[in-house]
């Protein structure tokens, strides 16, 4: 037992030393993306919504439009930057919604056995089995397209991931001696969860936030691509991909620009997640 723990510790130290670079690299790139999104109005060279029909289908490399223009003569760089701001805002909000619901229910299920746990488990199974695309279409039919309907749909459909992991890890922490000690000292249940269990989940949650953020970026662009995410015509990556489909032959750059943007953003989020996992835990996330 002691030997195994010691070996694990040594392994952790050995890896942590060599891979801190990954985290810094990811963090630096994430910072650049955030800055681009925050400064979007100043970084854009043109109005992302306004096209000039005399300037249609300009290939990348043009002096005024360095990433080219689309079928309506809109500047693709400006649209990609506007899409970045939208994607980051959507993915971040949806991730926070999912994390709050999932963590709360996961902690609750870990602490209360019996019917609370049974209900949480059933709801988790239900949400996991629920066809998300149906929910997205129905939400649009009822309240229309927009930021909040989209973000709430994404958040409300994706929290079980957090609930499952938090539940499993919290169960382990609740059996530890310091929790028993706190319980015997008369600390109430809520304070044990918030003050003793939650801090122990910090590493796991940070890693999950990064990976979930990446998943939400993908989900948002997929829904927008299908026409059931962002309002049509808005400058988002999913919409840009959908628009590019009619001009695959005429203007392939209309596809390459948003495709590159999505891959770049998701890779950076994954890099950040990996970096946090390796730096704080000394191992890769198993999932």
């Amino acid at each position: 037992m002691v030997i195994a723990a010691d070996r694990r510790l040594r392994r952790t130290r050995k890896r942590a030393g060599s891979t801190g670079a990954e985290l810094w690299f990811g963090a630096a790139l994430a910072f650049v993306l955030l800055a681009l999104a925050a400064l979007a109005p100043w970084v854009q060279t043109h109005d992302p919504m306004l096209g000039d029909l005399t300037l249609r289908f300009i290939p990348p490399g043009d002096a005024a439009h360095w990433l080219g223009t689309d079928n309506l003569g809109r500047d693709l760089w400006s649209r990609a930057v506007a899409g970045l701001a939208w994607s980051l805002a959507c993915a971040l909000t949806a991730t926070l919604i999912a994390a709050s619901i999932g963590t709360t229910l996961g902690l609750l299920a870990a602490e209360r056995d019996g019917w609370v746990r049974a209900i949480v488990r059933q709801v988790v199974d239900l949400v996991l089995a629920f066809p998300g695309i149906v929910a997205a279409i129905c939400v649009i039919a009822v309240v229309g397209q927009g930021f909040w309907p989209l973000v709430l749909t994404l958040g409300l459909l994706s929290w079980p991931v957090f609930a499952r992991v938090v539940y499993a890890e919290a169960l382990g922490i609740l059996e530890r001696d310091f929790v028993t000690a706190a319980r015997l000292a008369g600390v109430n249940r809520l304070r044990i969860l918030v003050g003793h269990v939650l801090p122990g989940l910090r590493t796991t949650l940070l890693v999950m936030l990064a990976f979930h953020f990446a998943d939400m970026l993908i989900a948002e662009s997929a829904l927008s691509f299908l026409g059931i995410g962002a309002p049509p015509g808005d400058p988002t990556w999913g919409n840009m991909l959908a628009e590019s489909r009619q001009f695959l032959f005429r203007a392939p750059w209309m596809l390459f620009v948003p495709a590159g943007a999505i891959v770049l953003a998701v890779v950076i989020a994954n890099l950040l997640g990996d970096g946090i996992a390796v730096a704080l835990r000394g191992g890769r996330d198993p999932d």
Partner: protein
Amino acid sequence: MAATLLRRLRDLATLLFGLTLVLFVMLRFAGDPVVVMAGPDATPEQMALLSEQYGLDRPLPWQFIVYLGNVLTLDFGQSMSTGRPAMSVVLDMLPATLLLTFLALGFTLLVSIPLGAWLGVRRRTLPRRIVSAGVFILQGAPGFVVGLLLIQVFAVRLGWLPSLGYGTVMHWILPTLSLAAFLAPKLTRVLAANVSEAMREDHIRTARASGATPRELLLRHALPNALLGATALVGTQFAFLISGTVVIELLFSWPGIGWLLVESTQTLDFPVVQSVAIVVAILVFTVNLLTDVCFRLLDPRLRAVGR
């Protein structure tokens, strides 16, 4: 084992009930099925007649109970747009989706296992780094983006492969690759991590000390362990893969249930939507069950305990 199965089946029944209820309420909020069925030119009299005919004039809870009773006798209602039995519409399209899913899963395993094993045993050399970085970038590329890029290259530019439809084996290639893009990079990375973890275990050191070749070390000792973890991943990711088929099927006009789901939701064809959801839930349940069984068969440690 029998008790576990029984408990699982009870969970599935609860799940199907919850699923049906939530979908029922959600779709009724989204629109009035009578308006959909009657079309834009219907008179109020026609609409009243239709709603009486389908029992849509009764209170909602009553309608739900009637629907549930029908489902229990395996009557899933008629499609509102075609009038055919909803379940047979779904079952007709299920093979196309299963074909796509299993092609993608097969391709994933075919690529991920050797690649993951290779990445796992290799030291940090330059080729390994390049491949590893490539896998990492591919993991950031969503399946439908990969699909669009494949269409651009192989269908539009080179004209080698068709991009739409289902007819021949040539039609299968691009959708399979696109769907595999959802899972293959992730599985490769998990396998690589598992293999490199397993290679450091004590029993590997023992085997190496007693003269096993590197090849034997990998194939007989490290890989089986690593595959065990990968089996669990494939099981949990199957649901994810099925939802991935939705966007891939729409992208390639693949006539499967993902395509059907979107189509029927948009026309508020309530019985078909319900049937798709039920079929998918049962499918995912079955795969998870099979994964568990495989797990027990593959892992001698679980055989003894038999939880």
